[in-house]
Structure formats: structure tokens, C-alpha cells
């Protein structure tokens, strides 16, 4: 353990720019949920109505948590947001521990550290201590947000503690995975899988008799019932499991060689497949994993939206305030719900498109574009190859969102026609999404070093306008500046070709301008 304290200070320094964003993100989720819930279901009658509509809806319960939480308004906040905050905090823990254990070991950085007067367990101890500090900070922050928005103090303390305890479980789990796998990617894959299983188990348990929820760290957290009974003892489970996992990680660390894992990495192909013959093959090979992940995520999100489509009508009738968010009013309530949710999915597809386009910059700055551009591959081909992933990929992601929503909604209303209908609706956003991607291309061509900033600002701007323009009465020009506002609100509105063609033309012009910039500048390193 020699040197762990010094290492911890060093890790805090390395994380000083990244960690605050994770904490801020978690706090914002809860802040928005707490204020929104208290606005919508402020009175006891509102809450009772909600219990009636939601309490019997298995899809909502599967998505959120045990309905007992709906006993109080604070519990309603926990019901809606707890699982998602846990996912954010679990990912934060996974990256914190993974980055400073296996990723450092893989990159050769910890070799340098371990050659100094530093004990064998010091890097692991420092990474875990960092995660615990981050979890405590998250807990305090969530307490401040919930108590600050007027929820009872005792429940707020428990809420923060429960999220922190779930986070620690995933930190300890990552510590074990970091011993087992030889590369950081595999570590993240394994922990991500457990996280997905934890969410699925609690979903199945909450819908059923509750037994399966007790197999899930997220389930343990939810079963403390903050604001709805406040029981502390379920937190003993994540704490005990974390302790055992840490002991296992230390034991494994003492048994293995530096750089080695328990699961050896498999050899790959000795020769390239015919698909890997040019820069297009390379770009798709590099990005296929990320594309599958985003598409699967959007399909699941769509399914979650679609599954509550049929209860929406009833729900709106009971909660007329919600109708204000939906432009069509109560009359075409389902269609306007579908339009709103598809637009949310389209925003996420735009985020995917931008992250995919920015992959080009990562290739360039890491020096991996250099050997490619030193072959008979033009800059146009290089750009087109990566862009083909971003454009076709974002269209695919939109189709996946439509497919998920269409399937789930179609099942609840017994109408298979919803599948092609909602895929079509989602694809109406293709030109708008491509225009956002085109902004990223323009930035890569002319502002290579800062490219990520305008690209993500474009996504953020569209999100703010789409989510808040109606409720906050933003001036009209702010709406018109977002390509999403020019896409008809299908299926509520009638689809017209002109705005879509115009958006597509704008996207083409921006991409051409971006290429002009890329063609004349230095490849930067």
C-alpha cells in the first residue's frame, strides 16, 4: 500500500476535468425530475391518480421501479429516476476504476509507477479510494439537490447514500474485472453486461413477486424506499458485496503477473478478410461496435417509449397538465406523444452521428490517419469512408428507434402496421440529423483542433430547443435555427418533402465546405 496516498492525489488531479461532469450530470437528472414531478403531481389527488394509472402498468414498472415508491411525492421522484441515476453513477465508477487500473497497466503507465517505491496494491487501492470519494461526492450532491428542492431531509440522506452504495458495488466489481481481463475494453464490456443484467433483473423482479430484484444492486438501492418508509438495512447488501469483491480483486492481483489476466486474449485473423480492403472497410470495422451499441440502445429506448403508448390516452385524461407538453392537445394525444418521443430519439441519433464523425479527428490526432493517407487513399475517400458510417449509421440508429417503438406500441395495441409506420416516422428525421453531422464535418475541415466544440454545441442547441422551446416560450428565431424544428412533427403533422429536401441540401453544402477545408489544410497531429 506504500504510495497509495500520493497516487490518490495524482489521480484526483488527472480526473479534475472529467469527474465534475459525471457528478453534474447525475445531479441534473435528479434536479429536473424532482422539480418536474413536484409540479405535475404536487397534490395528494394527483399522486393518487398517478398510482392508479401507473401502479398497474407493467411496462412503466419494468422501466422504473417498485410501485410502493409511489406512496409519496419524494418516492415518485425515486421511482422515476433512481435506476437511471444508478446507471450514470455505475458507469462513472466503472470508468474511474478501469481507467486507473487495467487501462493504465495496458498502456504501460503503471509499469513506470510500480517501478517506483509503490506497493503492489497501491494503484488498485488509490483507484478504489478515488471511486469511493466520487461516490460520497455524488451522494452529498444528490442529497443537496433533493433536500434543496423541498423533499424531506431524512429520505434525501437515504437517497444519496443508496446511490453511493450502488456506485461502490460497481467500483468493486470493476476492480475484479480489471484483474480478470487483459484489456480495458473487455473490462468495460463485462461490467457493462453486469450493469445491464442488474437493470433487467430488477425490472423482472419489480413486475413479478420481487424476488429477482434482490439479485440486483439497483434493486437493493430501490428497496430502501426513500421517502416511502426509509429503511436503511438493504444498504448492508451492497456494502458487504463491495467488501467481498475488493477482497477477491486483491487476492487475484496477488496471484497474477503484471500485465496478465485470468482470461487470455484470443488470437485473431492472420490475414485480412476481403471486406478489409480499403478505407471504407477500415472505417466500418472500427466503428461497427459503437454503431451496434447505439442502435441497440435506441431500439430499447424506443421500446420503452412505445410500451406506454396505449396508457398515454388514459394518463393524459387524468393529468391534463401533461397535455401542455404535447402540441396536438388531448385530441390526438397518442400521435403527439409518439411525435415527441421519436424526436427525442432523433436527438440521440444526432449525438451518435456527431460522435461517429468526430472519430475522424481521433484517427488524425492519434497518428493512425497518417499511414492511411500515405497510401493511395485520397482525403476525399478517407472523409467519405468515415462519413458513410456517420450518415448511414445515424439513419440506421433512427430506424432502430422507430423499430423498437413500433414493435412495443404495436404489441400493446395489437397492430403490426405500427412497425413500418414508426420506422418511417423516425426516418423523417434523417435530413435534420445529417445536417447536425454536417456541422461536425465543417468544423473538422476548418477548425480541426476545436472541432468537437461546435459539433457538440450543435447537438446541445437542438436538444434545448426541442425540449424547452414550447414550455419556456423561447423567441421564434431560436426555433428556426434548429433543423429539428423544420422537420414536420410526424405522425401528428403531414409529412411534406420540401423542408426535408432543403435540410438535405444544406447538409450537402456544409459537408462540401468541410471537405474544401480538409483538402487544403495540413494533416494535424
Amino acid at each position: 500500500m506504500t504510495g497509495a496516498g500520493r497516487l490518490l492525489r495524482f489521480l484526483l488531479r488527472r480526473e479534475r476535468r472529467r469527474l465534475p461532469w459525471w457528478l453534474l450530470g447525475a445531479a441534473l437528472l435528479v434536479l429536473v425530475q424532482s422539480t418536474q414531478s413536484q409540479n405535475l403531481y404536487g397534490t395528494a389527488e394527483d399522486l393518487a391518480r398517478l398510482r392508479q394509472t401507473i401502479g398497474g402498468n407493467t411496462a412503466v414498472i419494468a422501466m422504473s421501479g417498485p410501485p410502493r415508491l409511489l406512496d409519496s411525492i419524494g418516492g415518485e421522484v425515486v421511482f422515476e429516476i433512481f435506476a437511471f441515476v444508478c446507471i450514470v453513477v455505475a458507469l462513472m465508477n466503472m470508468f474511474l476504476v478501469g481507467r486507473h487500473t487495467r487501462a493504465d497497466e495496458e498502456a504501460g503507465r503503471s509499469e513506470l509507477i510500480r517501478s517506483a517505491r509503490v506497493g503492489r496494491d497501491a494503484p488498485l487501492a488509490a483507484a478504489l479510494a478515488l471511486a469511493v470519494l466520487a461516490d460520497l461526492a455524488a451522494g452529498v450532491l444528490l442529497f443537496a439537490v433533493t433536500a434543496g428542492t423541498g423533499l424531506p431531509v431524512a429520505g434525501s440522506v437515504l437517497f444519496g447514500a443508496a446511490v453511493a452504495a450502488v456506485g461502490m458495488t460497481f467500483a468493486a466489481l470493476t476492480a475484479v474485472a480489471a484483474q480478470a481481463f487483459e484489456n480495458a475494453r473487455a473490462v468495460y464490456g463485462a461490467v457493462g453486461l453486469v450493469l445491464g443484467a442488474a437493470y433487467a433483473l430488477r425490472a423482472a423482479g419489480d413486475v413479478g413477486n420481487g424476488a429477482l430484484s434482490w439479485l440486483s444492486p439497483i434493486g437493493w438501492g430501490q428497496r430502501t424506499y426513500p421517502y416511502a418508509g426509509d429503511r436503511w438495512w438493504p444498504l448492508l447488501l451492497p456494502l458487504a458485496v463491495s467488501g467481498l469483491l475488493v477482497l477477491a480483486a486483491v487476492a487475484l492481483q496477488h496471484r497474477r503477473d503484471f500485465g496478465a489476466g485470468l482470461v487470455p486474449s484470443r488470437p485473431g485473423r492472420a490475414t485480412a478478410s476481403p471486406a478489409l480492403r480499403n478505407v471504407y472497410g477500415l472505417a466500418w470495422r472500427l466503428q461497427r461496435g459503437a454503431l451496434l451499441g447505439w442502435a441497440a440502445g435506441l431500439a430499447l429506448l424506443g421500446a420503452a417509449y412505445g410500451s406506454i403508448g396505449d396508457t398515454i390516452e388514459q394518463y393524459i385524461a387524468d393529468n391534463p397538465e401533461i397535455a401542455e407538453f404535447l402540441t396536438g392537445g388531448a385530441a390526438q394525444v397518442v400521435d403527439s406523444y409518439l411525435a415527441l418521443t421519436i424526436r427525442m430519439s432523433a436527438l440521440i441519433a444526432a449525438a451518435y452521428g456527431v460522435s461517429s464523425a468526430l472519430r475522424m479527428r481521433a484517427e488524425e490526432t492519434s497518428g493512425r490517419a497518417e499511414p492511411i493517407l500515405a497510401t493511395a487513399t485520397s482525403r476525399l475517400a478517407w472523409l467519405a469512408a468515415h462519413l458513410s458510417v456517420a450518415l448511414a449509421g445515424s439513419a440506421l440508429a433512427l430506424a432502430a428507434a422507430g423499430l423498437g417503438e413500433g414493435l412495443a406500441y404495436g404489441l400493446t395495441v395489437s397492430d403490426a402496421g405500427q412497425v413500418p409506420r414508426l420506422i418511417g416516422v423516425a426516418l423523417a428525421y434523417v435530413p435534420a440529423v445529417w445536417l447536425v453531422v454536417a456541422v461536425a464535418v465543417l468544423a473538422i475541415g476548418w477548425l480541426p483542433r476545436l472541432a468537437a466544440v461546435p459539433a457538440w454545441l450543435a447537438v446541445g442547441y437542438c436538444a434545448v430547443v426541442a425540449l424547452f422551446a414550447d414550455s419556456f416560450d423561447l423567441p421564434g428565431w431560436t426555433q428556426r435555427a434548429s433543423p429539428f424544428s423544420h422537420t414536420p412533427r410526424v405522425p401528428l403533422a403531414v409529412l411534406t418533402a420540401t423542408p426535408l429536401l432543403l435540410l438535405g441540401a444544406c447538409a450537402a453544402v456544409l459537408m462540401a465546405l468541410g471537405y474544401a477545408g480538409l483538402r487544403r489544410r495540413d494533416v494535424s497531429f
Partner: protein
Amino acid sequence: MTVSAEAAISITALTKSFGRTKALDALDLTVATGEVHGFLGPNGSGKTTTIRVLLGLLRADSGTVRMLGGDPWRDAVALHGRLAYVPGDVTLWPGITGGEVIDLLGRMRGGLNRQRRDELLERFDLDPRKKARTYSKGNRQKVALIAGLASDVELLLLDEPTSGLDPLMESVFQQCIAEVKQQGRTVLLSSHILAEVEALCDRVSIIRMGRTVESGTLGELRHLTRTSIAVETSSPLAGIEALPGVHDVLVEDHHARFDVDTAQLDAVMRRLAPLGVRSLTSTPPTLEEMFLRHYGDDRAADRTVTL
């Protein structure tokens, strides 16, 4: 030194700045077709920048650059089909195996000699089935080298290609370059390993702070530098230090050690002969000495130039 019209590379007065840093300052470089040309210079002297300009990755500020009869910026793609490039610091895609990278780069250059590829894998003792993330620096370099050497190209641009290889692999590399030379292909070899340059290169260019300071065959360069002499004579060696071209003299009546400008060697020998030479050893300058003579005094200044 004859510069024929069909020189593989000809650069005159090439200048390139990054912001306020001048990386290349009126650099000249000529590489004749079919020769192995050594490209020497300390870190940060502009070797990599020059090669990146040749690859059309960087745009020249001024000067003329011709390669294989074309303009490296304008005709980049056509020219890249006729050359192979091996970077000094090879970064690969972590999830792709070495064998896949070799095939991909070969195909993108317009074809790979499969038989030569397999033979090179054997000679460099590289396992092509491993994912790139598990390769050491030396193995990553082997991947890029094999991909370059297995392509049927006219010109090889090698940027410190052996900095991570062990002596055994270094000798394999030297054999490979000797074969490439026999096939009449052209090589620009930037290197820090002077023994390698002496063994392989027909001509050498030495650059410093973005400017060419010496260029020629090793023999020509030696002529411009000093030879070390240790001599014992029967008569006392007085007045040696006053001769033109003689430096760093250490005289002890009948014994003397000194360096002499190679151009003045003949004149000095004529002066020594009448003194009755009992023994004489002459050491020609090593590339190391030439190198150190050019950089030793300016190392501090060089450090300010990056990239």
C-alpha cells in the same frame, strides 16, 4: 555528385513553419533514382516534417518539391500508389491484428506480394494473429516494415524504421534493404543508427535546424572532415601546430597526436616525412564524429525546434 533529371526526390529551398516555429528553413534534398539515401539529423531537426511534406500530408510554405516526377501535394494519391511509408512511431488500431493491418495497407497501396509478405513475417519473426494492442513498440514497427517491404513500389520512405528493433532484427532489416537496392528501388532512410547508415547508404544528407548542412557520398563527406593522426618521428616534432589545417595538437617531443583537415592531409604528410617517421596511425573520421562535429555545438539551439 550528379543530379540527373530523373531524380526520385528533389527538394529546393523548402520552408515550412508551424505558427512561429520554423520547422524547415530553405531545405535542399536530392535523392537519385535507385540509391539508398541516408537522412541524418538530431531530434527536431525537421526530418519527419520533410517526409510528411513528401507525403502531401503537410503543405509547403515555399520552395519546390518534386517526387517521382510529380507534385507531392497535388498528385498525392497517384504518387502514393508508387511508394511505401514506414513511420518512426507506429500507432495501430488496438482491435485489429498485425496480419490484417499488413494486408490492409498493402491493398490500399495497390497490391501486396503475398509470397514476400509471408516470407517477411517469417524473417522478422512476427505473429500476425495478435491484436495490435498486445504488440510491443518493436513489433508494431515490424508490422509497418513488413507492410512497406512487401509492396511492389518504386520508393520507400523510412522514418527511423529500426528504432525499436533488436540487433538481430536490425540485421534482417539491413539484408532487406540491400535486396531492395539490388532490385533498383529507391530508399530514403532517416536514421539515428549511424552504423546502419554507413552499411546501407550510397549518399547521405545531414540536416540541422531545418536546413541541409552536408550532402554527398560518405567519401565526399569524409573529405570535408578531419582525420586523426598519431605519429612518432626520429627528429623532434616542433612547429606542427602552426601548419594549416592542423587542430587539437598534443606534442611530446618525438610523439604527436593531432587532427588534420582531410583536404590538407597530403601537405602535412610531406612535412612529416623529412622528420623520419617511425610509426604512424591514421584514423578516418567515423560518421559519429562527423555527426557530432555538426551538432555538438548547436544542440542547445536545436532543442527549441520541435516536430
